[in-house]
């Protein structure tokens, strides 16, 4: 009977040993000394600084500092924190770290806290000794990268290409990557519409310039997309595009206008002065309806006018039954955009001047006098003839 009881006790002990075989070993003074030479050589978060809600990884490098044949058996490795939450448990099974070897433990984590510095604890449980605890340092910072408009036109003009000078800066403590600036808007043509910036180290800034041609007043949408680790983030900015008078644009002004009429064909001569601050290219002058342009100067090409420069023009056209005739002045800017302006020129007064020759009084009086002399002479002659 006692023999059966002894065998049962042996079986019970073996069963219990089998149940805890992976988590408990036999602590010996040598194994404890060996475990003391195991240390965390590095702990790295990716991204280095989290945004609240970001996901990332913690990679812990554990080094077995034993030089002899002593390997270390690890039961499991864990990461514990209520702010930087481990969302995976990949190291719940035992593993071995050989003498002089390094082993990486990587945890997927989520930053579930607001701005601040947190200390998640990495723990390594040895089979033949106590556990190793290591406090990592994790930072959470809710500071996005900054998009700044460095310079932009005072005003926009329909169809005219204008350049906007912007800048992307990284005020964060970690590097962000895959930075792309998207430029869009209703009725807007942006060149380029997508600008790849790439990586931006902490405290760095990079200029981004683009041209915008607007067909209507609208909002320009600027979106900066970037990745913090593998977490996408965006920065938005709306830039109002309003039309107005460009203070620098070319401003050709018509002056010294003289009108001459010749058989219903009007010759208008004048000067074009560029009162703007930019060059007016391909300045042309022509007449509009009700005038009908006629040779030799249906359209007069003045050419390019630099600021404060001037050129003369002459246009010829036919016009009837009208007091004023519109003259159209067109020019192009450096981008080839065409600008028009129309100026009415009074032609009726000149026409009237030409026709206002009045009655030829002297010839008429002379003719009547001669006629009267002739008639009077004959009356006198006839009276004398009667007598």
């Amino acid at each position, binding site marked *: 009977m006692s023999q059966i009881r002894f065998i049962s006790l042996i079986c019970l002990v073996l069963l219990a040993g089998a149940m805890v075989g992976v988590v408990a070993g036999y602590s010996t003074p040598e194994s404890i000394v060996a475990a003391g030479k195991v240390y965390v050589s590095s702990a790295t978060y990716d991204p280095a600084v989290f945004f609240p809600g970001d996901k990332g990884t913690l990679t812990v490098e554990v080094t077995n500092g034993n030089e002899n044949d002593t390997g270390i058996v690890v039961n499991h490795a864990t990461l514990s924190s209520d702010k930087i939450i481990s969302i995976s448990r990949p190291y719940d099974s035992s593993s071995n770290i050989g003498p002089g070897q390094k082993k990486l433990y990587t945890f997927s984590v989520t930053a579930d806290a607001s701005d601040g510095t947190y200390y998640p604890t990495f723990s390594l449980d040895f089979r033949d000794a106590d556990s190793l605890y290591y406090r990592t340092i994790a930072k959470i910072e809710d500071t996005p990268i900054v998009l700044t408009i460095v310079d932009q036109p005072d005003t926009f003009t329909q169809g005219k290409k204008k350049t906007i000078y912007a800048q992307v800066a990284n005020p964060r403590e970690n590097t962000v990557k895959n930075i792309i600036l998207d430029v869009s808007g209703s009725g807007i043509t942006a060149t380029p519409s997508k600008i790849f910036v790439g990586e931006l180290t902490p405290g760095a800034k990079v200029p981004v310039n683009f041209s915008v041609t607007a067909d209507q007043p609208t909002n320009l949408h600027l979106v900066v997309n970037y990745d913090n680790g593998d977490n996408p983030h965006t920065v938005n900015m709306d830039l109002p595009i309003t039309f107005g008078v460009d203070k620098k644009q070319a401003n050709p002004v018509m002056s010294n206008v003289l009108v001459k009429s010749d058989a219903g064909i009007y010759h208008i001569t004048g000067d074009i002065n560029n009162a703007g601050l930019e060059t007016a290219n391909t300045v042309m002058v022509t007449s509009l309806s009700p005038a009908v342009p006629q040779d030799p100067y249906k359209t007069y090409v003045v050419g390019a006018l630099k600021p404060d420069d001037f050129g003369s023009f002459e246009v010829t056209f036919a016009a009837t039954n009208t007091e004023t005739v519109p003259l159209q002045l067109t020019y192009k800017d450096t981008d080839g955009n065409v600008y028009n302006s129309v100026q009415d020129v009074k032609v009726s007064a000149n026409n009237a001047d030409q026709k206002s020759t009045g009655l030829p009084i002297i010839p*008429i009086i002379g003719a009547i006098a001669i*006629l009267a002399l*002739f*008639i009077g002479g004959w009356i006198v002659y006839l009276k004398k003839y009667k007598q």
Partner: protein
Amino acid sequence: MNHSIIDLLIRPGAFFQNAMNEKESLKFPALIVLAGGIAGALYGYLIGGLTGQLLNGIMPGMDSIIVLTTVIGALVGTFIFWVVWAGVMYAFSFVFKGQGTFRRTLEFVGYGYLPQVFGTFITFVIALDYIPRIHVPQLSAAAAQNPELLTEAVKALMHDPAMMELSQIAMIISMVFLLWSANIWIFGMQHSRKLSPRDAALCVGIPVVVYILYMVYSIAVM
């Protein structure tokens, strides 16, 4: 023809009194009218040249046609006017019971054209000086589609200062020499239609005065 041209111009009464004794003949009157027609054709050549220049832009070659038309028109027109003047005065003389053939009236009216030959020639000489100074508007082919434009062009030509001055001088010269002709015609009508000086003066004076007033009116509204 035994009578001098001097008599015709200065003493038309005596000229026609002698002419009545001779047989009716249109030979010399026709030559005088022909001379007037040639002078008129020369003047017409100059004026027609201007009109030709004006319209040449619309249809190239038009100037030659216009000049030819003007020259022939002036030549033939002088003969037509000769007959018309004679016809009008002959018709007026019926009011005063004039007697005599139309052929004789036509003959004497033809003689009376002589001062106008001088007048037309003088006008031609003056025109030689004025014509180069007249600015003729240039029309393009497109003007053919726009009658208003053509009208404006003609107006501009007529209102050219040199053209207006020439027209006024031509009117005064024509009027003076027409009155000279009228003076001759009065004596011509007196003898050819056996009228009193007063009736002859009315027969000639009324149509001539009306014609001169029309000339003055034309110049005034030009």
